[in-house]
């Protein structure tokens, strides 16, 4: 799934070089949300921005998750056996970082199986809109505005970007792109990814997790200069 972020200047015209960045992540992952924003900012401020392509790759943190959406904090308590107060404190910490980065974030959001979301992201890629759709879904989910795992909401968000609603519904009523999701997940496993976000620059340099804007900038420059 590929997208080109907003650009400032073009290095492509003068050098002919390109840089692909593959990012594995899951919608449910708050650090994928924070990391995507930071990576986008790093790319936007890079002199090579126009020559950089971001490929959105699928990764389910919990393939066994129920398709029925449940409150985030309820699942946190159920999975890790933490008290409601402790769960709140955990959420507050990552939430404070997200808000410091200018991202809407609420602990009052839902979680559900993300497989269908990943399939629609693959559809979005055929429109060149995977990154944009992922960003819109993340903001909608983490702001608590809507349950984006719900097929109708998912179709709403996708169609607002110009993706044919009928195609979204077609994908959601079939197993279209299921193989693509599984292929992404297999590749992540083959590469040794044990968590997300997992970002690979030029197919060679990896960052296993989210880092700062500066960290992403350094990785871009390193990959660019080593081509």
């Amino acid at each position: 799934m590929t997208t080109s972020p907003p650009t400032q200047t073009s290095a492509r015209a003068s050098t002919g070089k390109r840089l692909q960045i593959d990012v594995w992540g899951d919608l449910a992952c708050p650090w994928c949300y924070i990391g995507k924003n930071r990576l986008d900012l790093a790319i936007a401020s890079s002199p090579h921005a126009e020559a950089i392509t971001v490929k959105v790759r699928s990764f389910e943190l919990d393939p066994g998750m129920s398709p029925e959406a449940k409150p985030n904090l309820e699942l946190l308590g159920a999975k890790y056996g933490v008290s409601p107060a402790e769960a709140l404190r955990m959420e507050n910490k990552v939430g404070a970082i997200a808000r410091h980065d200018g991202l809407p974030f609420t602990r009052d959001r839902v979680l559900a199986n993300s497989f269908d979301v990943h399939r629609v992201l693959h559809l979005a890629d055929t429109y060149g809109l995977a990154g944009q759709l992922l960003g819109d879904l993340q903001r909608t989910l983490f702001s608590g505005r809507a349950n984006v795992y719900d097929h109708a909401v998912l179709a709403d968000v996708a169609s607002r970007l110009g993706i044919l609603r009928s195609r979204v519904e077609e994908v959601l009523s079939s197993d279209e792109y299921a193989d693509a999701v599984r292929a992404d997940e297999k590749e992540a496993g083959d590469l040794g990814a044990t968590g997300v976000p997992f970002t690979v620059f030029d197919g060679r340099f990896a960052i296993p997790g989210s880092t700062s804007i500066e960290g992403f900038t350094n990785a871009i420059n390193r990959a660019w200069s080593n081509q």
Partner: protein
Amino acid sequence: MNITEIIPAEISGYCDAGTGECITTETGAGHPSATENAAQTGDEISTGS
């Protein structure tokens, strides 16, 4: 794709595929409470699944 190097970036956080736990390692201006920060030991867990 052939990963030849893990870039030595300081990791702010990630979600673990095995457990579904989301680990926050970053501290700083975004943290809600300096007092609470000082009281913490180890990583913080959120949820991604």
